[in-house]
Each structure stands twice: as structure tokens, then as C-alpha cells.
């Protein structure tokens, strides 16, 4: 495994030099603060990388799967293809849980799932490098370790970086990651024993702070037909706002709508959508297979913990805890799982 150490100012310099390098343009996304909020923002040399945060409010899926994007434009009743912007994408500083979510999204948007590949998502994703940042202080609501992840987990990351205070330890976990370190090898120093120790300690502290649920045999348990009243009870206070799905790094449902100007030109756009809205499944006849809240929440839980395990082999939850923290009525997905477990 290729490894390397950089001080925080060196990282700032490295990214500044990478925006345009060898004639190739890169869009680099880094943690930054804007008006007191930590967000994943496009890097420029003036933008200072921010390290003191737990996680971003928004999941990073929007970089590859924007909340709103134009699929094609049209004029004179003819569609014109609008390809996604070319160029390399480097994402630095997302948490390991979110890096892991990309592996799941990859399965949905590649041809493997249905025979159709999604050129918009894949066009961006294929030319990307993911450098995740291990967790030091997990938040209330995090439960990644129950779902196969962890504060220093490498799945989905080309490189995992460990914050050791004034410096970062980089570990490559893919050919892309190795190349990245190789290409910039003059800047990296080799880690020593003190660096490795500091990494271990920070990981252990984070690990201990993460809440746990049991997912043993969950797919089989969900095969039992839970009664309507089970789902009704769980969703009694749900507002149907959809926040839990918009903020979820693995939720990928979308809508397609046309926007037209007076002169007849316009665009076909794709926007994030949510299974928590009744119109999502409303038939043209007015019939709705998921007309009620309890049916829609059941869909959300079943999709993540029963359907995708069958169709892709993965539970579509990385335990990032966003839905736990941000649900306005504190509907906690961990509690739902515990109830299904009979706890």
C-alpha cells in the first residue's frame, strides 16, 4: 500500500497546483465553511480547507447525481443531447460512510442493474478520485459500524486520509489512489511510527463513540409480513417531508420533467424525488399503490434493507445518521430496525 504524509498547508498547495495540471482541468471539492456552515465546496486557492467538523449536512451524491440536471434540450420538436461537463473530479474530505455510498450508487447507475448504463452519472464518476477523511468525532446518530463501515473504512475511497492534527496520513486503496500519490510523490513524506500510532489512537476513539444496531438476519426478518399497524405506529408522527430521503447518500430516486420557454425551446430535467411523496407512485387512473404514509415508509425501509440486498447484494444504508439527526419529528431509523428485530 502506498502511503504518504502532508502537512495541512502542503495540502492546500497541492490542490492549488492541481486545478490545471498537464493541460487537464480538475474540479476539486473540499470541506469549507460558508456563513458558519460546513459544506463540500469547489476548491480555489483562496478557499481554506476546513477540518474541524463531523459531517456535511448534504450527502456528496450531488456531485455525480446533481439535485437538478439537464438531460437534453429541445428546439423545433427535436431533442439535442446535453452531455455532462468533462474533466476530472477530485473529492477530498468526505467521510468514509459517504465514500462507501458511491459503491452502491455505482451499481444503480451502471448497466449491471437493468441493462442500461446512465451516461450522466457514469461520465462524472468514472473520471473521479475519492479521498475520504477518517472520522475523529462521530456525531450523535452515526451507526456505520453496524453496516460494514467504520471511521477509517476504505470501501469506495481511492485514498483514505487520517487527520493527525497538523498533518494528514494518506493511504492509497486503489490503483487510482496509488497513481495520485505517485504523481505527487515529491510532496509526500513517508509516515513513521509516531504517525501510525496517532492514526490508531484516533480511530479507536472514534470507533468507541459510534452507536450500534443489530442487522443479523434482517433480510429474513423483513420477509415476515409485518402488520399494517406496525408501520402505522412507526409513521404516526411522520410529516412526509422527504428530508430523510433527500439527505440520504444512497437514495437515488428521481423525476424527469420538461421545462419550456415561450418560444418552444426548453429542457428536459432530472431532479431528485422521494418515495415519501404520494404523487411519486400515483397512477394516471388516480389509483395509488402507496397512497398512505405507512406504505411509503415501509417502501423506504424495505427498499434499503430487503429489496436492494436481493437485487444488488447490499443494504442501502451506510449508517451516516443524517436521517436520524435531521428528521423534524425524530423518527429514528435505528429504532425502526430495533423494533423489527423485536428488541
Amino acid at each position, binding site marked *: 500500500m502506498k502511503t504518504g504524509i502532508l502537512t495541512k498547508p502542503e495540502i492546500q498547495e497541492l490542490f492549488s497546483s492541481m486545478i490545471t495540471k498537464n493541460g487537464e482541468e480538475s474540479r476539486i471539492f473540499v470541506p469549507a465553511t460558508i456563513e458558519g456552515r460546513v459544506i463540500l465546496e469547489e476548491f480555489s486557492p483562496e478557499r481554506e480547507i476546513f477540518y474541524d467538523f463531523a459531517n456535511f449536512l448534504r450527502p456528496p451524491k450531488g456531485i455525480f447525481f446533481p439535485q437538478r440536471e439537464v438531460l437534453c434540450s429541445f428546439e423545433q420538436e*427535436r431533442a439535442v443531447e446535453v452531455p455532462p461537463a468533462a474533466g476530472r473530479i477530485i473529492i477530498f474530505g468526505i467521510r468514509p460512510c459517504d465514500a462507501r455510498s458511491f459503491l452502491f450508487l455505482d451499481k444503480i447507475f451502471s448497466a449491471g442493474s437493468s441493462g442500461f448504463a446512465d451516461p450522466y452519472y457514469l461520465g462524472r464518476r468514472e473520471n473521479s478520485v475519492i479521498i475520504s477523511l477518517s472520522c475523529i468525532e462521530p456525531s450523535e446518530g452515526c451507526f456505520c459500524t453496524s453496516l460494514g463501515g467504520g471511521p477509517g473504512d476504505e470501501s469506495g475511497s481511492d485514498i483514505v486520509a487520517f487527520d493527525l492534527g497538523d498533518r494528514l496520513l494518506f493511504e492509497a486503496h486503489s490503483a487510482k489512489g496509488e497513481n495520485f500519490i505517485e504523481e505527487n510523490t515529491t510532496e509526500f513524506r513517508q509516515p513513521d511510527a509516531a504517525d501510525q500510532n496517532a492514526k490508531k489512537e484516533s480511530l479507536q476513539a472514534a470507533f468507541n463513540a459510534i452507536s450500534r444496531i443489530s442487522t443479523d438476519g434482517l433480510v429474513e426478518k423483513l420477509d415476515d*409480513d409485518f402488520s399494517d399497524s406496525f408501520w402505522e405506529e412507526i409513521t404516526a408522527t411522520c410529516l412526509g417531508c422527504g428530508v430523510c430521503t433527500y439527505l440520504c447518500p444512497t437514495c437515488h430516486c*428521481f423525476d*424527469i420533467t*420538461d421545462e419550456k420557454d415561450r418560444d418552444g425551446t426548453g429542457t428536459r430535467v432530472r431532479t431528485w424525488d422521494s418515495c415519501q411523496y404520494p404523487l411519486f*407512485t400515483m397512477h*394516471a387512473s388516480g389509483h395509488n*399503490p402507496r397512497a398512505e404514509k405507512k406504505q411509503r415508509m415501509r417502501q423506504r425501509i424495505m427498499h434499503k434493507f430487503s*429489496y436492494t440486498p436481493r437485487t444488488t447484494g447490499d443494504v442501502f444504508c451506510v449508517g451516516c445518521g443524517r436521517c436520524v439527526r435531521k428528521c423534524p419529528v425524530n423518527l429514528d431509523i435505528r429504532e425502526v430496525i430495533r423494533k423489527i428485530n423485536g428488541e
Partner: protein
Amino acid sequence: MQNPYMPSPVTIEQIDIENDLKDIKTFRLKFEREEDSRRFNYKPGQFAELSLFGFGESPIGIASSPTEEGYLLFSIKKTGTVTSELHNSEQGRKMGIRGPFGNSFPWDRMKGKNIVIVSGGFAFTTLRSAIIYMMDARNRGDYKNITAVYGARSPGEFLYKKELKKWQQSEDIDLTLTIDRQAEEEWDGSVGLVPSVLKDVSPSAENSIALVCGPPVMIHFTVPVLLELGFRKEDIILSLENRMKCGIGKCGRCNIGHKYVCVDGPVFTFSELEKLQTE
């Protein structure tokens, strides 16, 4: 990479009003580019996404048969934004099409079998495709008896009246048409709802497969009749119409249990659906 979201350009060549209520029209579409036409290989039971730019897309079952070369047919009921705009369209209008999508009727399994077709209302569209396909001289030998029961509210509400007339006179298909209740117009077909007429026709379940397309109530009462006649659950074939957007298993809305109707369906056996509905 082929972009599955990009519609291919087609022109509306012809528009026919199908019924007395004038809310169902059949659109005959022709590809503008020869290569798109060649690539659009379909089997009866599949659907396509029809595009009117600025209005949106609608999933519509393909009513023509691959044996009818050079054009595609879609019979469309005026419902909402896209379908109303289609109804306002005139011959010559340019639009877009994506597809073909979904599975089809189980053509491999249907070979060598008696085929029973049961339909009500305007859901007959993909069954028109299936009948034309089987009745084609190149294919007819692959299937044994073809029996069809098709019901409509009144005589004027049947689709494809020209074809129905031809089939009524044909030796190759045993077609029963039925209307819900006695009409004021002249009517020499059956009177009664599809499930009870099906019971009267009583097709043998021996070596048979039934294709059933119609409104939910009709299906609800037709399946028990077929089971009673001895059809196995896996030999009763149904087609679903869930709300769709992408048509390619990505947008997440058309699922029933762990299957997507747009790619794993729209055609399912009754036994598959029974399992999926509890998921």
C-alpha cells in the same frame, strides 16, 4: 455509450379515432432515421416512452406487431398533460420515442400451446400486437388454438373494429366480443361482463396459457374463473401499468416488491405477482 434517455425522432403519420367517446386515438409513428428503426427490435407485450418536447413523456404499450414493418402503433387514452397534447396533435407532428422497454409476453413458453386472451376496455392494445403476431402466416403454426374474449362498455367502445371484424370471420381464432349490458344499437355479440362470458366460453386449461389485460376489477374477477377452469397460476399472464418515469430501472418509482415493472415487467405471471404483492 448509447444514451438511454435520448428519444429518437419520429413523425406522426396517421391518427385514427378508435371509439365513440373519442378519447382513444391510435397514432401511427414512423422513425425519421433508418438506423433507429432497425434498432427498435420489439416483441408483443413491450412498451415505449413517447415524448412530446415541452410536455413530457408517457409509457405506452406497443399496439403494433413486429410483423407490421415500417411503422409503430400506439393507442392512447386522453388522460393528463402528455396524452391530452397528443390528442391535440395533427398528422405530421414530430415527436420522440425511447425503447422498446420491459419484458414481453412469454413467447418461448407460449410456443406449442393453446393461447387464451382475455381483455376488457382499452387495455387490449398489446394484445392486438400479440394476436396480429400470432396470426401472421410465418408464426401461426407455432401456436395451437387461439381463443379470445374481449369486452367493452358498449359496441362503440371496442378498439380496432376493422381487425375485430376480420378475426370474427377467421378460422384461425375464436373471438367472442361482449358488451356490459344490452345496447340500443344493433349488437350480435355476447352481453355480460368479461369474467362471466369467459366462464361460458370455458376454454380448456389443457396445455394452455392465458394472457389477461384489463382494468383492475376485471382482473380481480377473471383470475378466479381461470383458476376454476384449471389454469395453473404460472400460466395466467398479467401486465401491469405502474407509474413510470425512466423506463430503465433507475428512477425507483415503479417497483412492486423487489422487482421494477419497467425492466422486470410489465408482464408477470399471477404466481409471481402473488409473491411480490406481499413483499
